[in-house]
């Protein structure tokens, strides 16, 4: 468990998603990272029913991460989140009357996992209903749990292989009550992924088939 930063890498000009991913992977391997298997992160959307007034129904996102295989995270956008046992999915089935699954909105990111000393880099293809929509890169510095202490180091590392696509300090850290110097949680990672997934979802609404 370390400080995680999730960012989106835009697809290179004139290249496909897969080619960009391969480019990134080659860069990492040249750097000296060792491939250590695969990873996946997925997100399902649930509508909260039973809202009498015309307010837009709140959306509940249930996410899974292969790093924490026995857990299931549930969060509202910008709101509270919870980490639970894997049986939470079964619970959601039981709560069908209150939360309806929006089946077409499932987003997931799958890819390879690299380890470079204390860094864990995961390059994944964000896909929605089996069409690739973008590239997600997650960098985790396992040796530290306080973002304020290691952000500079992480930025430098990311610059070495991401170049100009290096992100700024994620909002998940700055939005915290205690600021940058409070320890991280798995919810920070998940909220960053959620942000990325929502961006990806909004992106592809215009071109291509708007699958709903």
């Amino acid at each position, binding site marked *: *468990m370390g400080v995680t930063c999730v960012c989106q890498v835009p697809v290179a000009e004139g290249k496909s998603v897969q080619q960009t991913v391969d480019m990134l992977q080659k860069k990492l391997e040249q750097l000296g990272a060792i491939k250590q298997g695969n990873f996946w992160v997925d997100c399902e959307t649930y509508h909260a029913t039973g809202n009498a007034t015309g307010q837009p129904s709140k959306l509940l996102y249930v996410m899974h991460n292969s*790093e*924490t*295989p*026995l*857990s*299931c*995270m549930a969060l509202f956008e910008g709101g509270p989140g919870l*980490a*639970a*046992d*894997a*049986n*939470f999915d079964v619970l959601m089935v039981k709560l069908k009357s209150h939360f309806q699954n929006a089946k077409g909105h499932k987003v997931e990111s799958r890819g390879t996992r690299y380890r470079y000393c204390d860094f864990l880099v995961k390059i994944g293809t964000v896909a929605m209903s089996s069409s690739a929509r973008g590239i997600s890169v997650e960098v985790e510095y396992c040796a530290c749990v306080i973002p304020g202490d290691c952000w500079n180091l992480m930025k430098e590392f990311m610059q070495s292989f991401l170049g100009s696509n290096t992100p700024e300090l994620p909002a998940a850290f700055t939005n915290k009550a205690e600021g940058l110097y409070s320890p991280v*949680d*798995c919810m920070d990672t998940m909220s960053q992924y959620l942000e990325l997934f929502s961006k990806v979802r909004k992106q592809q609404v215009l071109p291509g088939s708007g699958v709903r």
Partner: protein
Amino acid sequence: METYVPPLSMSQNLAKLAQRIDFDQSSDSDEEGPERESREPWSKPELEEDEGTVKFQPSLWPWDSVRNNLRSSLTEMCVLHDVLSVLKEKKYMALDPVSQDPAMTKTPQVFQLISKKKSLATAAQLLLKGAEKLTKSLAENQEQRRQRDFNSELLRLRSQWKLRKVGDKILGDLSYRSAGSLFPHHGTFEVIKNTDIDLDKKIPDDYCPLDVQIPSDLEGSAYIKVSIQKQSPDIGDLGTVNLFRRQPKAKPGSQMWHLKLEAAQNVLLCKEIFAQLSREAVQIKSQIPHIVVKNQIISQPFPGLQLSISLCHSTGEKKNQRASPDKSKPDDHLYVLEHNLHQLIREFHKQTLSSVVMPHPASAPFGHKRLRLAGPMAYDKAEISSLQQSEGLLEKIIKQAKHIFLRSRTARTIDSLASRVEDPQIQAHWSNINDVYESSVKVLITSQGYEQICKSIQLQLNIGVEQIRVVHRDGRVITLSHQEQELQDFLLSQMSQHQVHAVQQLAKVMGWHVLSFSNHVGLGPIESIGNASAITVASSNGEYAISVRNGPESGCKVLVQFPRSQAKELPRSDVVQDGKWIHLRGPYKEVHWGRMEGRNFVYKMELLMAALTPCP
């Protein structure tokens, strides 16, 4: 007819005694008494009675009653004497029988018979009734005893095994489920009453009123055989069922049912062990896959070696003829590993019941209780794997087998080397305390007779599962693989180094100076095992010098440097003209080491040094 006479009461007793008192107290009557009595014995009691009412004297002396008794007995004796004399002499009196009426004897014979018969019949009836009562009570007793035997046996059975009543059957549980096992066998046995034997016939020696019926697949006896062999060349040999005949030892005084139940429980445990091992053998991926054939699991711990774990279950009905090949290799069976397998499965049972696991919520699976927090606390893979059991039963037993094999091979290597090489000597001190995965031995290389001087080569070998770690006295740590050739080469190189170290120590003792010393010389022929070492020592007065080069393969070479004055042919030189140069050391000469006297290298060296040291 018996009449019961109650004992006399106190007053009655006193009256009886009082009647016996002799009231004739006069002393002269004592002396004349016997004579008078013989004449008139029958008048005496009348006189006494008369006098009894007139006089009453208490006894004056303690022998009174005795005297009275004696007197009365004398009286009686006289009477008897008279009767007998009358009977015999028939002079003054004669005995006459009582005449019987002849008419009375005729009819009473029949009556007598009938009356006798009747009385006998009533007596017989009484006796028969009594006998009947006795036999009935005896039969009841025996029946009760039979029942009691069954109950007492049942009580004994219940004190050792779990029983429960289902309908009218008594069932028991011989599985390990209450001890934490997860094996799905039911392990139920039935208790049968065996009380319908004929009590009149002789009861057999091993009769037991209680019998147990065990499930048919748990009959007979079983054990797990673990053995390490050289790899068999053909796979077709696999799958031969090894049966055996190991008779279970019957403890004296234990019942049949106890033996049966214990054997069945053992069979169940062996089956569980084997099921767990084969499940792991199939599921766990390893570099060299394990083969599971029929009742054998074969794996390869080291190249060229085969570990086979087999479940040997014999139902005890017919002895298999193919069991004879087992006899040829009785030492093959590693009993230690079989015992360890039993212990490991019992440990596994205990873990499912430990406080870390139990009590658990109904929805949680079996496992460490911290794992239930894995979901909510978002544990990552590293944390989860640290909580879970990483090794299964098969892996553990294979590691243990590897260690046992490595340890025995190391011992064999050291022993063969020690017996082959006499100089220097190898000593191995094995540690008593070792682990299932680690043992240690201290190896000392010494020369006989010089143990105190030459003790610089001491190695501590830590034998692990796949490697041997050697810690040298000088601090070097070397890791050797499982190949025995590596260890042998290493020890040989150490032995050659020891000889040179010994010369160094000897020089200190003898007063010689060490001029140069090298553990690994770069000159001379290359050794295939290790490196050669060399040393040069000079005598105390500097006249002589000895150079030794010792290698593991090339052996030892000893050269002595003499002073120039002793050299026979000195090369003439224009430069070296002065006479003082005669005292320097000159040319070298090789020593025929094989012809030197002395039982080992150091002894020879000591003699050489002594020979080269001049007497003062």
